[in-house]
């Protein structure tokens, strides 16, 4: 069966001030796959993610979601698209003043006309799915880091999304807890045939979950392929990343001095 590109990024260029962050990114994301966007800190991967969920508009280029360009959409059109998109933020982004259950229920209360009784049952179903049954009345501050991530995931799943974006899902978690989150992401993909885009720099996670990997470096995609293909890649930056080699730092004394004393 022909693979369907549910997200198509075309020649995406963006600037922060004069600084070019994304330099013509082209990327297809296929329905039902887990695509990992890999790259070092500052490579532009979080910026790319922000564009994919419409939080930022590019300077140039297109992002087609199910064939429709979101870069030209108005707020109402974008809101409709976002209803079928779930997002797990890096810090889980739960509201601390609300209980876990209220956090999960929030998108449903805001975007649907469902009765409260229905929302309550849906919330419990989602919490059960992420292994947090019984934690409905806890406050986020009473949860561990891994549990917060799970709660964030339950909220991202509240509206039964077709596409799920995860920003650094295992950052700050110990390896065992991080593995638990990876297993959960795999379960969601298999169970709901969800398309999942994960932004990360955690290699262990990449090789566990990725169907395909796109590596971003200084605003450009320098590699696209499977986990096996990336390991065989001869690209020096890819190799450096996989082998966890530090940058060769040979300071230019003149330049360094100039940067310290320039007026």
């Amino acid at each position, binding site marked *: 069966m022909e693979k369907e590109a549910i997200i198509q990024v075309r020649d995406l260029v963006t600037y922060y001030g004069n600084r070019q962050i994304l330099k013509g990114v082209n990327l297809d994301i296929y329905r039902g796959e887990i695509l990992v966007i890999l790259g070092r800190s500052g490579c532009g991967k979080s910026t790319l993610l922000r564009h994919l969920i419409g939080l930022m508009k590019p300077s140039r280029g297109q992002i087609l979601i199910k064939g429709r360009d979101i870069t030209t959409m108005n707020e109402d059109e974008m809101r409709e698209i976002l*209803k079928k998109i779930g997002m797990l933020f890096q810090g889980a982004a739960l509201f601390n003043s609300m209980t876990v259950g209220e956090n999960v229920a929030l998108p*449903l209360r805001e*975007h*649907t*006309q*469902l*009765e409260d*009784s*229905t*929302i309550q*049952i*849906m919330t419990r*179903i*989602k919490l*059960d*799915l992420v292994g947090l049954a019984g934690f409905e009345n806890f406050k986020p501050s009473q949860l561990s880091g891994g549990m917060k991530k799970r709660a964030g995931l339950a909220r991202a799943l509240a*509206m*039964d999304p077709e596409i799920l974006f995860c920003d650094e899902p295992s950052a700050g978690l110990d390896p065992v807890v991080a593995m638990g989150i990876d297993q959960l992401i795999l379960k969601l993909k298999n*169970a*709901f045939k969800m398309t999942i885009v994960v932004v990360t720099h955690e290699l262990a996670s990449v090789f566990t979950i990725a169907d395909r990997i796109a590596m971003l470096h200084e605003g450009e995609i320098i590699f696209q392929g499977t986990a096996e293909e990336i390991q065989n890649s001869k690209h020096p930056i890819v190799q450096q990343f996989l082998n966890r080699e530090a940058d060769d730092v040979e300071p230019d004394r003149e330049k360094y001095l100039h940067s310290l004393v320039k007026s």
Partner: protein
Amino acid sequence: MLDVSTRDIKKGVIISITGDVDLYSSPEVRKVIIDLTDKKTKNILVDLSSVSYMDSSGVATLVEGLQQVGKYGGKLMLFGLEAAVKEVFELSRLDKVFEIYPDEQTALDHLKK
């Protein structure tokens, strides 16, 4: 588009649902179920053979129905689930909570028991 119709049978009512049951259409299903549970309908059989997609709001609506009939000792049974819909129930482990039958006749046979 969703269509929900009811048909009286000797021992209760059959609800036939046609279309996708999602966040926007499940309130319609809920209304029909709650109308019947308000009347304390003894047996409610839900025909899902013409439903190809159901999200968690649909599942939650049926759970609510089950909870309501439980209050007066009634029954809520499901039949005719397509594989994809059945999977949604299995994932949330609700296939163990509901009485699910392959077709109307089997569901009716169980009512006679």
